[in-house]
Each structure stands twice: as structure tokens, then as C-alpha cells.
């Protein structure tokens, strides 16, 4: 009797506005990817495949933020085609650097950036936001770049029919578990206590301060964070810039709420 071939999971990856580094992170799991390839089929992976099939997808990773009219149209189409849609990387989950324009005059920024090098493509920029501002997403993998471990985890969980838990602990947790000498105690302006961990405190472990590429904690106390950094004598203007590098939208939301109070 011929054993019936198991149906493979149809996996795709697509890009919106971003550097495409997240897509690269998927290919970085090559050591595990080979083991997974008898269970999944990469039907759309524009960076490594010539022939990419349109959906439907069992699981679709989307990187980049929604920053143009074209992005929005694509995203809506992909949403229809995907059973599970995963926001991959800081742009898709938090808006990342593109959303820095919220801190400035958006129109002026768009004119400077998009009109400088005229293109045949009419990019039609719109306000830069994460995917879930427009569509429902099943899971978020934050980070710049996203952790390849988490990409593997989500694939394995979907294959097993399990739900992956959201990691909600601050960067300080993993950093303390590793017994790292706290950068804040060394006079280095680390944003660890405000930011989502799940990265094994990678940067602070190499004496590089956390800059929040995985976004701020849902219950981040940004007011207290600013006080802390001020008390430590850090330049607060510089820190606001750092705090808005990946998370301008979260920052503005906090400032708005603080004003309302």
C-alpha cells in the first residue's frame, strides 16, 4: 500500500516597506529549514525563489510596515489568502523607523524622501503604521531583525496545532537571569526595563544598550522610564530619539495619554 503523502504546510513570505532583512532571517534558519522542508512548502519566497505562487497560504509571514497605497492593497489581498498571517519584524509589528515620520511633518518628510529620486512607480505614500492597524493578525514576531528561533517556534507550533505563547517579559528578566552587570548601573543608557524581551537580552549581554527593537512592554511605564534616565543624568533629547527609533507610535500614544491625565 502506498502511504498517502502528508499534505505540506503552505508557507509564504511577502514584503511591504522595509529593508527585507526579516525575510533574510527566515532563510537564516537554513539548518532547521532542511528538516522542516518535508513538512512545509515555501510557495512564496521572493528572495530565494524565481517562481512564486500566489496564495492560499496556511501561514504567511509579512515583513515591512504599511507605508504606501500599494502596500495597503497588497496587505488586504494577502489577508484574504492567508489562514494565519504573522507580522514579521519591527516594521510590521511596531512601525519601526518608517513611523519616525510621525515625529515630524509627515508631508514634508514624504516630499523630501519620495520626490528626491523620481520614480516611474507612483509610490503614493501614506502614514506609516504596523499591519494590525489595518488588518487582524494571528501573531506578532517583533525585533530588528526578528529572532530566527521565534520563526522556527511559530512554524513548529502551527505544525503541532499548538498555540505559541506571547513572551511578555522585559529585557531585564533574561538579562538578570544571565547575571549581566546592569548597564544602567554602569552609567549606560539602556532601555531594557521598558522593552519586550524574548531576545535573551542579546544586546546588553554584549554591553550594548537595549534600544527597544522588540517594542515597548504592553505595561511599559514610559513616564517612569524617562524619569529614570533623567535621574541618571542622560541627555533626554537624545533618549527620546532613541526611544522613538522603533516605537514612535507607542511613544506618541503615551505622550497623548500623559497629557490627558
Amino acid at each position, binding site marked *: 500500500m502506498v502511504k498517502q503523502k502528508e499534505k505540506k504546510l503552505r508557507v509564504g513570505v511577502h514584503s511591504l516597506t522595509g529593508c527585507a532583512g526579516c525575510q533574510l532571517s527566515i532563510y537564516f534558519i537554513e539548518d532547521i529549514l532542511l528538516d522542516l522542508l518535508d513538512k512545509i512548502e515555501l510557495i512564496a519566497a521572493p528572495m530565494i525563489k524565481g517562481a512564486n505562487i500566489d496564495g492560499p497560504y496556511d501561514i504567511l509571514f509579512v515583513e515591512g510596515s504599511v507605508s504606501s497605497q500599494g502596500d495597503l492593497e497588497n496587505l488586504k489581498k494577502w489577508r484574504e489568502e492567508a489562514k494565519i498571517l504573522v507580522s514579521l519584524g519591527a516594521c510590521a509589528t511596531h512601525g519601526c523607523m518608517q513611523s519616525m515620520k510621525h515625529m515630524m511633518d509627515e508631508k514634508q518628510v514624504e516630499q523630501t524622501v519620495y520626490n528626491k529620486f523620481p520614480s516611474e512607480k507612483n509610490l503614493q505614500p501614506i502614514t506609516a503604521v504596523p499591519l494590525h492597524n489595518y488588518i487582524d493578525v494571528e501573531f506578532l514576531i517583533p525585533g530588528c531583525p526578528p529572532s530566527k528561533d521565534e520563526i522556527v517556534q511559530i512554524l513548529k507550533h502551527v505544525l503541532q496545532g499548538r498555540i505559541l505563547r506571547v513572551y511578555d517579559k522585559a529585557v531585564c528578566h533574561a538579562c538578570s537571569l544571565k547575571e549581566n552587570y546592569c548597564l544602567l548601573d554602569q552609567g549606560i543608557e539602556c532601555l531594557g*526595563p521598558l522593552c519586550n524581551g524574548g531576545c535573551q537580552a542579546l544586546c546588553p549581554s554584549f554591553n550594548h544598550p537595549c534600544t527597544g527593537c522588540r517594542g515597548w512592554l504592553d505595561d511599559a511605564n514610559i513616564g517612569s522610564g524617562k524619569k529614570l534616565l533623567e535621574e541618571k543624568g542622560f541627555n533626554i533629547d537624545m533618549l527620546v530619539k532613541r526611544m522613538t527609533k522603533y516605537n514612535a507610535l507607542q511613544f506618541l500614544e503615551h505622550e497623548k495619554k500623559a497629557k490627558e491625565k
Partner: protein
Amino acid sequence: MGKVLEKKRLKEFLSSVSKGAELIAPVKSDTLRFEIIKDFDDICLEGRPLFPVKKFFSPARHDIFKLNLADKNKAFEEVKNKIKPRVIFGGRLCDFNGLLRLDKLFLAKEFQDEYYKEAREKTLLIGINCVPAPSKYCFCESMNLDKYYDLFFHDLGDKYYIEAGSPKGESLILKLEDYDFSIPAIKCKKHLEKKDLSGFYDSPAWKDGSKKCLNCGKCTAHCTTCLCFDVIDEVDADLKKGKRFKEWDSCQFTNFTQVAGGFVFRKDYVAKFKHRIYHKLQYFRERFGMDMCTGCGRCIESCPRLIDFTETVNKLK
């Protein structure tokens, strides 16, 4: 009456008591940590490490089971511990009292933790007295700590006065010279007013730190007696082999109290803060007749905003 040891003979003494065992002591590299000693000269007894000794009894992350889902009869296989005998030198009274408290939980008859048990049995505890208190955040003087150790050192300038706290400890110093001395109690700047907290649950004082708390969980990670953990299953890419492991968790994170349906019953700062302090100073005492807190002050010192629960508790009237 105790014994006395010339400081210049310390190395010799430590190498003889730690023969065939790992010697663990505070080591200063970028900061002070309890580490397995490679060179006796690395030992640093000035100050106390901000990271407690609990990791040697229940590591921050360690495997409990190996999984093999392909083998239905043997899907789970317990991971056998390989704990070497060891000697902890330079722990403080608060550190070792912390173990005494953790024993109540991890050596309880009905829920014995194998790793913890083995680690406890294989570890000799040699403490050192705190003169002066190593941190301005210490308040162990308020906590009525037990004289819990195998051996306890007190610095007398060019020599150590040594007292035994167990028959095992006693046997190790038999050959040393007798010395008449009594170890002075530790003096701390900070003070905690001990009180029955049961009537203060709704006091507005608990809100004190709410504007400051960053929800970062450093207080519990650095606590001498916080050992709450999460259990996580992970499979390999073949979806058959894998492992179940333990990782330290914290009541200060939202997911900690998440139940089915996504409901979280301790969400805001006050609820989480109160839970932590009531556990240390009330619930544990109700069950085991002692405070869980040992007054090491690590939760205060490690807090980025230096939130000090002793101030809150002292305020309650």
C-alpha cells in the same frame, strides 16, 4: 567556643575542605558574582554579590524531561542530574537563611524537587559575617535570621574566628586552635518594622511605588528566595524529539496570572507589588512560621527606580 584560622592559611584550609568538590565563592570581574572558583586569588569578600546563590540549587533554566513522542511507551524520560559536591564560601547569613526558606517549599514531602534536594545535600555552606553591612539597602537585622550554616567566619584582622553550625562543619575544624570569642550581631542602617499585614490590605500606602515601577521583574530575579518558575515544552524540527524545561518566572509579569480565556487577575502595579510583599512577609509566615524575606536588600538595590518596600511597610499604621 569556636576556632581560629590565620588568614594566610585560608587557601590551604579551603583547598582541604573543598577536596573533590567545586568551590563556589564571590568573584569580582566586571561585577561581583558567585562563581565556581578556578583560582583562590579570585575570591573577593568585599561587598555581597547582587545575584543570589539560588541558581546553584535551581538553575535559571534547566531541563526536566527529554521528550520522544515517537516512542509511545517512553515519551518522557527524566533528565538525570549531574551535580558535583560543592562548597559555597563567602555566602552571607541572608543567603543561607534564604535556603532554609526554600527548603520549606522544595523539600516538602509531597512536592520534593529532585534537583534542589540533591544540590542541597551535596553543598557545604561556609558563611562570613557582615562587618560592616555590605550594602546600605540591607536590613537583615530586622529579620531575626537563624544561625544557619556549616561554618561561619568572622574577620578578626589577621585571622578568622570560625564557628561551626553543624556536626559536619564541626568535624572540619577539629584540628584548628580553640579561640574564645563571640560573633557580634550584624548592624544595618535600614530597618523594617515587622507587623501583621493582614489588616492593611486596602491601605493607600501600597500605591506609593506605582508611578515608579517599570514592571521589569528585576526585584524577583535578584531576590534570595523568589524561585517561581515556568515549565515550557519545546520540540525539535522533527516534531518528535524535544524537551521540557524549567525557567525562572516572576509574579511581576502579566502572563504569570493569566488563566484560560486570557483573564489576568493581577494586572496593575498595586496588585502585583502587594502580592510580592504579602508573600514575603505574611502568607509564608502564616504557613511556615517565618518570614520569607531575609533582609538582603537585593530587590531594592537592583530596582532601577530603587523602590523600597520597607518604607511602604513601615508607613502602615
